[in-house]
């Protein structure tokens, strides 16, 4: 199992790392038992994700995929941002080892989870817009529910 140079770059120098004060939406997916937790903070202005930050507990791929995902959604309007799939995140990182694919799914879900919080705070029902989020927070789902 080896990581691409891009994965190593995003792991070693993660972009958009940290927290956002007065975030418009905060989402968290994953759980400690499974070994990865991603927390995303977003700022939304006129339907555009104007800023995004993250904190991640997890392996190299978990940190790299969160970093790449934040970079890909930053500055995009929500509709475009929702089109970014885990596959797109993986491709942008020049691929992931098969056992790490679930990290990219988690990164996609983390963005959605932050948007979910944003819509709820706006009094808008997120379900028709975002669909169901797999957040691994339920122990019953097991660690690979997203794959």
């Amino acid at each position, binding site marked *: *199992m080896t990581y691409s140079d891009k994965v*190593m770059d995003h*792991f*070693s120098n*993660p972009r958009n*790392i*940290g927290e956002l004060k007065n975030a418009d939406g905060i989402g*968290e997916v994953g759980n*400690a*038992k*499974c*070994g*990865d*937790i*991603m*927390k995303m903070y977003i700022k939304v202005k006129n339907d555009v994700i104007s800023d995004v930050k993250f*904190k*991640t*507990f*997890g*392996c*190299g*791929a*978990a*940190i790299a995929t969160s970093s790449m995902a934040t970079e890909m959604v930053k500055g995009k309007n929500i509709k475009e941002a929702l089109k970014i799939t885990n596959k797109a995140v993986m491709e942008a990182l020049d691929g992931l080892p098969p*056992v*790490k694919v679930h990290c990219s799914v988690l990164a996609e879900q983390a963005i959605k989870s932050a948007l979910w919080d944003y819509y709820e705070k706006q009094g808008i029902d997120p379900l028709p817009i975002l669909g169901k989020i797999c957040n691994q927070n339920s122990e019953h789902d097991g*660690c*690979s529910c997203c794959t």
Partner: protein
Amino acid sequence: MSHIVYADNAATTPVSDLVLNSMLPYHSNFYGNPSSLYKIGREAKKAVEQSREQVAGCLGALSNEIFFTSGGSEANNWAIRGIGYNLAKQGKKHIIASAFEHHSVLNILDVLKKDGFEITYLNVYKEGIIRPEDLKNAIRPDTALVTIMYANNEIGTIQPIQEIGNICKEYSIIFHTDAVQAVGNIPIDVKSLNIDLLSLSAHKLHGPKGIGALYIKKGTKILNLIEGGAQERGKRAGTENTAGIIGLSIALKDACDHIKERTKKLSLMRDRLIDGALKIEYSSLNGDRKNRLPGNVSMCFNGIEGESLLLKLDAMGICASSGSACTSGSLDPSHVLLAIGLPHEVAHGSLRLTLSDQNTEEDVSYILECLPLIVKELRDISPLWEKIINKKVKSF
């Protein structure tokens, strides 16, 4: 990156100059097949037999009780398969093992299980040590074999081998021990310990990869491993790995000759490393502190994940390993850490540093300099750490 601090000696070790130089003539000058009659063959044969004697000498065994294999995994597979299937003919299909054996033991036990064997796995408790009374209670009239590792490969805990050997002798049960991590680190006398079979490997002792041995006590009935020529008394056919065998014997002798001074040096470095690393808050040592291999440090750091810790250490030139899920290629952390009762979330943050006599006090200082910085860096970006310090989740 100019300097590498190699602290993964339980995974493998560099071949020492002494070993390498002793091997070279058997690749170039004495390349003859040890079974051939001419001089370069006879020389090779002589060296193989001298090596066998030397290996036997280090273990308190006889030279005709030493069988060379391709390594520790082969020796473990052979011992369990060869004893198990032989005794199954007498209706003995029960085997006792510890819960945290190496995969080369656990996975062959799974194969036997599919063939109708029953396996009892002994609890290793939080200390990472089996209890002899549990072994006694597990013994049945149909018990064919007890297989318990000498020292654990991940957490380094040493098992009560003398007591296990005595119990097995008392009940006339064959006792195999996977001593891959122990040989060369702990003085071993197979006769006084009542060991019937013992697996060892060269590359954990500054020897070459691809060579190991199985000690089989004289008179122990075991099925052949490889059919073919008459090598290894017909039990394990195949042209001998002459240079490897020489390398194994030189490496083992060197380790056994210097065992006292090296144990002393290694234990001092290990203890400084443990004490230093334990200064990091929310950290803990895995397994018993006293009964552990002289070079083994296995710890958990709450709130971070082992693989990212390894990658950060690697970037600083430090080679280490982890039992986290992410490094095991599965979604579960190592069976060893789970066997000593660690919850998944803690086991994910494990780190193993294993020293050899080629390490220095400077290496230890360098690791202790880097480790707290890396742990802090990863905790600073960890939402789990945030929960731990805000007491939102239980820490350990």
